[in-house]
């Protein structure tokens, strides 16, 4: 076991260390110390509440709170803007209207339509298409090639009570059943334009033959 009590091996080092100059504190040591102590005591006396409400801490925190409130009202971050924008909203869909005919008695028609079954609707649509094809003088647009029927009577100068029939029956024509669509009321001018287009197409078809 090593004997650590024997200092004789390190006499030189020990003497050198003992001869080292003694370091003294600076002249103003006590003054600086008591200044620090009084400063520490003052800091301790200030309570937590007082510290919070000192201007150095209060002003930044109030400023931050005010900024947050202003930003909240400016950006209105919790409301989805798409709900309010009419341009981004989906169009209103008339899903309840399945088949609409010439409005002799619209209210009656509507009640009848609601009670029709799917097969009845196909049958009614076929009959309707047949009637429209049989009666070209009827006040309607009839283009079987396009599968589109526009029927109805003008109610006023600016409105037209009719419908676009887009049904597809079992024999191949278009059916409105199960479709969501928007009902269009054509004005007299629009009807005339469509009529013109129809005539042009008929003429073209005739010429091609």
């Amino acid at each position: 076991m090593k004997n650590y009590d024997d200092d004789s091996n390190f006499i030189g080092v020990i003497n050198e260390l003992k001869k080292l100059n003694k370091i003294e504190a600076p002249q103003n040591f006590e003054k600086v110390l008591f200044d620090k102590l009084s400063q520490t005591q003052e800091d301790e006396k200030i309570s937590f509440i007082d510290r919070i409400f000192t201007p150095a801490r209060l002003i930044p925190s109030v400023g931050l709170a005010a900024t947050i409130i202003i930003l909240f009202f400016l950006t209105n971050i919790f409301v989805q803007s798409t709900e309010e924008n009419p341009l981004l909203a989906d169009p209103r869909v008339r899903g309840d209207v399945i088949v609409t005919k010439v409005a002799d008695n619209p209210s009656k028609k509507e009640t009848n339509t609601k009670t029709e079954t799917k097969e009845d609707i196909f049958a009614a649509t076929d009959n309707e298409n047949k009637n429209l094809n049989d009666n070209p003088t009827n006040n309607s647009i009839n283009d079987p090639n396009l599968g589109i029927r526009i029927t109805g009577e003008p109610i006023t100068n600016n409105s037209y009570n009719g419908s676009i029939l887009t049904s597809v029956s079992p024999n191949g024509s278009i059916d409105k059943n199960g479709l969501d669509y928007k009902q269009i009321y054509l004005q007299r001018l629009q009807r005339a334009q469509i009529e013109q287009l129809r005539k042009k197409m008929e003429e073209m078809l005739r010429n091609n033959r």
Partner: protein
Amino acid sequence: MTEINFNDLTDEELIIKFQNNNTIAAFEILVKRYKNPLMNYVFRFLGDYEACTDVVQETMIKVYRYKDSYQSIAKFSTWIYTIAGNLAKTELQRQRRRKIFSINAFGAEKDENYEIPDNSYRPDVETDSGIKDEIIQKAISKISPAYRQAVILRDVQELSYEEIADIMEITVGTVKSRINRGRAQLQKLLKHIYKD
């Protein structure tokens, strides 16, 4: 009524007076008694006079604020040296962290550390043996902090093994071992001094 002369009281009596009556005069006497020994101890440990002054003042502030935590079963000197030693170790760690760049690369081959020159007040420069003092201080700074503390307390502060054991909170055997190893390292580093 006779006036008490605080200078005649022991350290333990003074701190008890300060504890019981908050006698500032007793605290002032303790500061006077310990400021230089602590400066010497901390300076040898850190090697930086400014930092050393701050550490000793911080030690005194801790004694003032936490006077009630002193228990009369221990020696006052042990208590105050323990506080100063802990603060000095903390300061040493802080100083090491502050050194952003390492200049060890310059002495990598020789496994040497180059000291960053300290331009603060250096008491050793004012004496004839200033250069030698500086060399010894550099050598002290190179040995590990645990050995350094033990060697300084024993050979510079001339405290007993028991006191050092209490201050460092280790056994007397460990103290002796650390002192021996520290001295051996110093002897190796200071070989050239003995040749002269």
